């Protein structure tokens, strides 16, 4: 009896070795200026992330999900998208979302619980970061179906982590997208952990990418800390989708250097030595800087000038977030459940306002 099995181990696609040397095919469209822009964004994102953690410790920011270590995976993948493409991110895509056009203060306001942080600039087809794991992957398929039905030259991308690949919605999405050959790109950041559970407990296959085979679509495994390789892989996936070649599953192998969120303590589940390797030798920003220096495209003066500018931009974003008008409770609580409030909602809102006018000492009628 002949049976199906997975025997072919394909190494993750790599263009930059950890020492910054070029070991793979360089994408044609990538010149030094673009590469510098990737680097600036990655440094900006890292410093933003670290600043957000500090703000949290100071009690100025609520729960926050850091992405440090995943900058190459995020900037490299978002860089392959057009502004008109559809983007369905998860909550850990803040670096990519900022690159795509989300103002940094909105990312901070999200962790301050401000409802306006759920909005994205009107010109973007990007939805707010999804909290429920894997649900957004299906939404990307729906948007991709709409693009296909209307004959539009757009792709729809879904971003998620390794944990999401255990959810039914991930599998339903890949299958559905494959059957209808919609212009979708599924980008998985395999950052090794879903909170505390390692990827080896998430799946018995050695890779996420090989799951594509079961759905009849292309899978790519890429070194997620190599921004050039991520960019090249994502460009291939996006180009295939745009040309009617159907969906692609891209797995970027990366590492979450920080906790799952500010409410997590990763020391309880991480191997300190493995951690040290990822944080030092395999760090994505270090790798790109070494590459740029080899090309003569970056130096210490450029570094310190950019760090100064990045920090100024972050400080300005913090200032804008902290001076942002507080939400109107009555509007937020009752205003956007439906397009038009139901009579019961309108009555609750009126009761809430009346109680507030009386000083709010007794709670409000709806709560009693």
């Amino acid at each position, binding site marked *: 009896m002949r049976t199906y099995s997975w025997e072919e181990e394909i190494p993750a696609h790599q263009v930059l070795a950890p020492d910054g040397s070029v070991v793979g095919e360089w994408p044609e469209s990538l010149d030094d200026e673009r590469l510098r822009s990737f680097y600036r964004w990655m440094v900006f994102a890292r410093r933003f992330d670290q600043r957000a953690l500090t703000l949290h410790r100071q009690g100025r920011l609520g729960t926050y999900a850091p992405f440090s270590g995943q900058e190459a995976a995020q900037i490299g993948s978002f860089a392959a998208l057009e502004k008109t493409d559809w983007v369905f991110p998860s909550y850990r895509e803040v670096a990519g979302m900022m690159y795509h056009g989300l103002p940094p203060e909105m990312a901070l306001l999200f962790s301050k619980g401000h409802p306006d942080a759920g*909005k994205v600039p009107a010109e973007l087809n990007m*939805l707010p970061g999804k909290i429920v794991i894997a649900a957004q992957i*299906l*939404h990307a*398929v729906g948007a991709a179906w709409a693009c296909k039905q209307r004959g539009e030259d757009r792709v*729809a991308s879904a971003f998620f982590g390794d944990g999401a690949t255990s959810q039914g*919605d991930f599998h*339903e999405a890949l299958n559905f997208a494959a059957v209808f050959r919609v212009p979708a790109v599924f980008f998985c950041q395999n950052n090794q952990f879903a909170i505390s559970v390692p990827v080896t407990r998430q799946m018995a296959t050695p890779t996420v990418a090989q799951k594509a085979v079961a759905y009849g679509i292309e899978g790519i495994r890429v070194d997620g800390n190599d921004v050039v390789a991520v960019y090249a892989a994502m460009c291939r996936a996006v180009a295939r989708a745009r040309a009617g070649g159907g969906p692609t599953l891209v797995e970027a192998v990366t590492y979450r250097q920080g906790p799952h969120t500010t409410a997590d303590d990763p020391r309880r589940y991480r191997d300190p030595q493995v951690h040290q390797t990822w944080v030092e030798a395999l760090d994505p920003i270090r790798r790109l800087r070494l590459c740029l220096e080899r090309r003569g495209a970056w130096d210490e003066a450029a570094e310190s000038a950019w760090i100064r500018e990045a920090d100024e931009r972050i400080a300005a974003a913090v200032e804008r977030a902290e001076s942002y008008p507080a939400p109107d409770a009555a509007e937020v609580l009752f205003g956007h459940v439906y*397009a038009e409030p139901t009579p*019961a909602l309108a009555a609750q809102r009126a009761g809430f306002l009346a109680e507030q006018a009386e000083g709010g000492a007794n709670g409000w009628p709806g709560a009693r």
Partner: protein
Amino acid sequence: MAVKLYIEAIHDALAEEMARDERVFILGEDVGVRGGVFRVTQGLQERFGEYRVLDTPLTESAIVGVAIGASAAGLIPVAEIQFADFILPAVNQIISEAAKIRYRSNNDWHCPIVVRAPYGGGVHGALYHSQSVEALFTHVPGLKVVAPATPADAAGLLRSAIRDPDPVLYFEHKKLYRSVRGEVPEAGEPVPIGHAKVQREGSDLTVITYGLGVHLALEAAEQVAAEGVSVHILDLRTLRPLDEEAILEAARRTGKVLIVHEDNKVCGVGAEVSALIAEHALFDLDAPIRRLAGPEVPAMGYAPTLEKAYMLSVDGVAEAMRAMARF
């Protein structure tokens, strides 16, 4: 006015809405080539093409999840869940996603989808093709839930559901598909969501019901009328948001309220209706509220005796009416 079967009213309203607005498209299992297992979508793929009547894989969460994404991109999806029993794999997409996207994006995004699902028993559907699942969703802010009882309302509420900017669950009772016939206005006017309808005027007691219950109540009311009992019947039509004003008015009208639904009693729609009446009209009542509902068992059995034992009957409703009238 044309006289149509309940199922024809749904089919025709779907076709008319698709002809009116090219953003409207249908997706679901067997909806295309086969025209649906109940033939609700018969002929629509031939008329509107594969891209607008999409036969999907057997995947309920994806049917709703894809509908949500397509609606974000500007389409108006009408998703069919083949049997309401099978809506459960899609519950996360309905409750966490469709119902909340407007709220969590502070009005930046909305979700104009319709999810149609045939529900209810009486057609030998057994445990997994007979359930009433509407109450699972009437608890959820952000959703609208309708359950038409007549062909006119089936057409009119479907039109409203498709034109509504928010997600609407449209529950069609499968026993009504080919057993109920009625006049449907040619003009194709929508029936507004959130409005109950008095289906019979009366003065001795009020029945509040929906779906198949409306027809049982109407027939039972005829029976007891011959005995001198005058029954007022309110058809809820929309289960969320409930038409609170109409419910209270109907309760006050007679002072005696009998709630009838096929779904089981605990935390069913009747629980909310009776709570509303207790909160706002208790002193207008002349008798305790009574709920006549399906038994507290997981689902109805397949064997005819078991199905019959589960289902409400005209005689059962009539008996409850008599008892209430005597009180």
